[in-house]
């Protein structure tokens, strides 16, 4: 929770965020090493995967050229990124009217959202979109701070059942009915 106070003798102005300022991190942005590792891993995998491809005879270039190129450059980029990180350079985090760059990132909320999406992945075929869609909506609203669970579930149910019918009747795309098969 962040607080600003105003008392009779005027205190210092609140930190109006300026675009590129990133107050929470100073010094080496170690997380970027993680990105560099990811890039290197992808690059290496691309190259290895490409070696399993067979070259067709009419094709002088073959399916391996592009992957080799891309994989190689990825590895180079990962090295460059690691070097740049070590020098203390950091990327500009995206800012916008709704971001407060001085606040620490709230990763717990992100994890909750990811959890709800994973739940959806696991249950959508079993329970059907008409149910899991409502769970996605209400669950995400809860994760993002909404306290009105009943209202959110109702809205979510309207959305999920409505969209199920929309795609089924309107566009002929049957989404999984799950356990409501036969009812819908």
């Amino acid at each position, binding site marked *: 929770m962040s607080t600003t106070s105003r008392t009779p003798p005027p205190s210092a102005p609140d930190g109006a965020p300026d675009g590129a300022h990133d107050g929470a991190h100073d010094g080496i942005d170690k997380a970027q090493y993680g990105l560099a590792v990811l890039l290197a891993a*992808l690059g290496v995998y691309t190259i290895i995967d490409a070696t399993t491809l067979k070259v067709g005879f009419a094709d002088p*270039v073959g399916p391996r050229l592009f992957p080799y190129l891309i994989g190689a450059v990825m590895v180079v980029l990962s090295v460059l990124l690691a070097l740049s990180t070590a020098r203390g350079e950091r990327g500009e985090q995206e800012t916008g*009217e709704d971001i*407060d760059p001085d606040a620490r990132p709230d990763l717990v909320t992100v994890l909750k959202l990811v959890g709800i*999406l994973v739940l959806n992945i696991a249950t959508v075929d079993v329970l059907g979109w008409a149910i899991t869609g409502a769970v*996605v*909506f209400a669950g995400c609203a809860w994760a*993002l701070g909404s306290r009105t669970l009943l209202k959110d579930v109702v809205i979510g149910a309207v959305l999920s059942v409505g969209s199920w019918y929309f795609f089924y009747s309107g566009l002929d795309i049957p989404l999984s009915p799950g356990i409501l098969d036969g009812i819908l």
Partner: protein
Amino acid sequence: MDSLSLLWDGLQAAMTPSNLVYAALGVLLGTFVGVLPGIGPAMAVALLLPVTNGMEPTQAFIMFAGIYYGGMYGGSTTSILLNTPGESASVMTAIEGNKMAKNGRAAQALATAAIGSFVAGTIGTLLVVFFAPAMAEVAVGVGAPSYFAMMLLAVVLVTSVLGSSKLRGFIGLFLGLTIGLVGLDLSTGQPRLDFGSALLAGRIDVVVVAVGIFALGEALWVAAHLRSKPLGIIPVGQPFLGREDWARSWKPWLRGTALGFPFGAVPAGGAETPTFLSYLLERRLARNSDEFGHGAIEGVAGPEAANNASAAGTFVPLLALGLPVTATATIMLAAMQGFGIQPGPQLMESEPDLVWTLLASLLIGNTLLLVLNLPLAPLWARLLQTPRPYLYSGILFFASLGAYTVNQQPFDLFLLLLFGLLGFAIRRFGVPVLPLILGVILGPLMEVKLREALALSDGSPSGLVNEVLAVLIYVVIALALLVPPLVARLRGEPDSPRREREEQMSDR
């Protein structure tokens, strides 16, 4: 002229009641997403892709065009009315327009922005009508080597010119190219990068990639930074312009259009440069230039027109060459591919109905924008009071829905989540999104052309340069890569960063 009669046919086709409904829907939807910060037309188009599977391509594109223009109008509404602190707004309109609003002239700021957008959009679309066919005719004769070179130029320019870090631009590009590699190789039919899974043997659907990176990525990013001090909104009645304001605005509108259109038609031209240039130009030409910085209407009229003309300009390379230069254009290109339409110089010949109805709809959409949105401006402003939990829950809902409808497979949802996390990561590390999405969608096309060119020359690299146009383009690429750092070194300054913030904010 032949173009005009084709346009007339297009207008008649576009004026059917159902097409008008789609245009209006697109405009309203686009304004809706444009008003909300952080959500842009690219995301809206990506979220709507699954729904358009059941539609006629013409109607889908009419809607997309409406979304594109509506998005820009919405964005300028927000930047004028949102009581942002100090100089944190980087868009030119926001600086002068916001000051005007604080001085109680919000109605005039909104009006000049809207009318200027209409003027610029209309003129810009007419310019597209004249230039695109001519360009397409020239480009049809172009062969694989030059086509490859052109795409390479677009990709290189976008990667190295925009954004504050070339390194990150290239990282984005190559991440996108890697994603584009997944799937069956086109000539030999072998699966690439399938990570041993049969589910990845086919190409990753563009809906999943685009929705994951734009929609889900944005939602996750905002979730991590959800709470912040609310900004006030500047109350406004109906937008309107007095006579003196008209007189001060119309020339900046025209000058802005002239500046914006060429930049929009060129890869990496972007909208930031012409709006900035328009601002400078208006400031120099204005009689009362010290009003600038405190709410000069010319400082809103010119840049707004430049912004919209630039958006219109992006349709030239898209329709004539099949070359997208903004994120939204890239997704529209992918949508075309989804409909089985092959973008490229032959598009104007092979799908004249689509092209001309689309162009006509741009004109109609522009008009609808003015007619529908101008009176609704105060209403749009109230949208900003929506709590974000509902907004982003809705986005996550529609994103999941969209990804699921592609194949009715939970695996796509899993991919969606992966791309959402990737979207989060690129926002965290400042990797620009445009090179990434270009890499995903243009990468496969580039490979096809590359192999075509080399196949013709039996594998010898000379196959890449045996067309004059290709050689010329490679020279330009080399210059674009080498000149800026040389110039900076000669001047003894570090490379001046070009902020890509405006692009990410408005998500064009």
